[in-house]
């Protein structure tokens, strides 16, 4: 391994710092204030100094550390656990996480719900982008279909929470199919742009169709109930209040606790389903199609059905996440479904490693919990996501966690 000379590294670092200084000079150093400006010359200098140091450190590291690591794209591995062990372990984990509800405040429950919703969204998009390799930039559209499906379904048809979950999955899945159909022939970047267009169309229609969706004012979504128990102080949907049935004192966190428990179970089931799908013929077809479409079609794989099923699967998961979002917020409006949301979920999938289920969960938890833990981090959150997306694409295109493919041993061998 050859070390690059330090003097050259120094020179390159100075050059990088100079470019940074020029680029950040006007934007960071001169802050617009009406038609006038105020100066803040320290900011570009600080940024340039940071770049200088980072570039210098990067230059001193051995070159092989910084080279893209993608030699072992997929490592085969035998399944480590039997099904009953997985089910038992899952139950224990569920109970452990569920018991957090007893200690958590309403605030942390709300944070937990949002984190789980992003886990769900990440798992859904991971099916489309990670498994099938179809870059979907309009994923938030399906999330919106689920959320609005619940809110509007209640308003117009009187649908409840429990009916809304499967119906939203179905509806979003159908949307996924409908939107997937015209883009079958496309791949790569054209597909990305078309899905982006679809996502934006859904949002704009929700925003402008005042008579049906309430436009920018949004729609109220009802609070979920459980067999007629309601988790609010006063009964609004003709049930009985939960706290009276059980003789408890009312607390405003009960609703969140309930949603958290249901959502946790849904995430668990989705996780199980998605990881099983990977080993099934359809999951393998998705991954094969991602790697080489022409080869797959030559081998007689039905690419139409394979792509549509990936779109539908991902969209249904997104739709379910939407129902939980609407239920936990009690209100939906088009602002929640901007392109930024799609980019965020994409960042989760990319950071977690395209195709890696557990990586996606970790990334979703990291990206949603981090801003809560570190307040200073919150402002720079998007900036950090952006840098992370670029760096990971360059350095580890397969994500931080390398994916492993399960394989099955033949009995007796």
């Amino acid at each position: 391994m050859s070390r690059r000379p330090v003097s050259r590294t120094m020179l390159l670092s100075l050059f990088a710092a100079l470019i940074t200084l020029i680029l950040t000079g006007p934007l960071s150093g001169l802050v617009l204030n009406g038609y006038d400006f105020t100066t803040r010359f320290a900011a570009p200098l600080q940024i340039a100094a940071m770049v200088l140091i980072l570039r210098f450190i990067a230059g001193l590291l051995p070159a092989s550390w910084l080279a893209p690591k993608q030699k072992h794209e997929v490592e085969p591995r035998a399944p480590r656990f039997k099904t009953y062990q997985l089910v038992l372990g899952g139950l224990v984990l569920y109970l452990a996480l569920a018991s957090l509800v007893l200690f958590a405040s309403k605030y942390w429950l709300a944070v937990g719900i949002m984190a789980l919703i992003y886990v769900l969204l990440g798992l859904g998009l991971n099916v489309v982008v990670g498994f099938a390799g179809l870059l979907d930039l309009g994923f938030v559209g399906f999330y919106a279909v689920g959320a609005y499906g619940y809110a509007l379904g209640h308003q117009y048809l009187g649908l409840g929470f429990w009916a809304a979950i499967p119906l939203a999955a179905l509806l979003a899945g159908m949307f996924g199919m409908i939107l997937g159909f015209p883009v079958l022939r496309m791949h790569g970047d054209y597909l990305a742009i078309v899905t982006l267009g679809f996502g934006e169309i859904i949002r704009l229609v929700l925003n402008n169709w005042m008579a049906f969706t309430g436009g920018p004012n949004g729609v109220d979504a009802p609070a979920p109930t459980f067999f007629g128990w309601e988790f609010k102080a006063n009964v609004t949907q003709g049930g009985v209040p939960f706290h009276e049935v059980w003789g408890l004192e009312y607390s405003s966190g009960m609703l969140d606790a309930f949603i958290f428990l249901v959502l946790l179970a849904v995430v668990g089931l989705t996780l199980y389903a998605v990881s099983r799908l990977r080993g099934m013929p359809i999951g393998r077809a998705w991954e094969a199609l991602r790697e080489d479409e022409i080869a797959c079609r030559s081998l007689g794989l039905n690419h139409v059905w394979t792509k549509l099923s990936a779109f539908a699967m991902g969209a249904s998961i997104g739709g379910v996440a939407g129902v939980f979002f609407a239920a936990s917020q009690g209100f939906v409006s088009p602002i929640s479904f901007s392109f930024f949301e799609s980019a965020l979920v994409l960042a989760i999938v990319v950071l977690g490693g395209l195709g890696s289920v557990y990586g996606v969960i970790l990334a979703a938890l990291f990206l949603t919990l981090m801003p809560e833990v570190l307040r200073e981090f919150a402002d720079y959150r998007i900036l950090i996501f952006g840098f992370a997306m670029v760096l990971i694409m360059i350095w580890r295109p397969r994500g931080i966690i390398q994916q492993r493919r399960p394989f099955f041993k033949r009995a007796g061998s």
Partner: protein
Amino acid sequence: MDFYVLGQQIVNGLVLGSTYGLIAVGYTMVYGIIGMINFAHGEVYMVSAYLTAIGLAVLAYFGISNPWLLIGLTMVFAIVFTSLLGVTIERLAYRPLRRANRLAPLISAIGVSLILQNYVQLSQGAKNQGVPTLVEGVFRMGSEDHFFQITYMQMVIIIVAILAMAILNFVVQHTALGRACRATQQDRQMAQILGIDTDKVIALVFGIGAALAAVAGVLITLNYGSFDFFVGFVTGVKAFTAAVLGGIGSLPGAMLGGILLGLAESLFAGFVSSDYKDVFAFALLVGILIFRPSGLLGKPTVEKV
């Protein structure tokens, strides 16, 4: 149909369309040369809008008040800075991914656009910004209460856009640089064998694209007067629509697509519904990509194994 309303919408459409065309050039040249959608291009335009306001503020601070001088100097400042930004983005976020799979540069580009958006928001604040009106006066046709008009600023936009396109066309068709660009676009490996530094050419193309986005940014900002850190996204997608409509990879196509899209959008806004004009633009994009992905002037692509 009212003739004057129609005339007004056509004027607005031409103005809008010529700016779309300028931005579309950046998409189409980059796509032509390395086959990637530079998703961050819209944000480069957004940065140039901020640079316009900053440039004007600084020049005003030094006491310059001649509007033409202001516009000219601001444009030079924005062009120089923005092309440097474009080249830097290419060097850092796209060049290392030249050999990666097709999704990687696109995701990296989304990362870059998040960075630019958030960086501008953090450094300049989230509020709406504005610039003063520099060029006043309108040219009217028709009677007192029944007319259509074209402001002098709109005339400036159309003239500058035509000028910029003419210069670009000259550079691409008649200079050594342009020849290198075209050669790299046709066959990068062969161009490299013949001694063309293709990395430099690609960086140059990013620079040119960003420079034209800066021209558009200055013009649009001066015309509308207000902007925020979020303007890059919608304008970027629309300019991309224009590039696709004209046939991605084709320079005259970008301009033609821009003008057609601008006209279609402003006629739709004027006669159908202005609430749904963005829906219309997005639907047009989706429709073209589905039914005629090669656009009006583009060549159909054949996938080879």
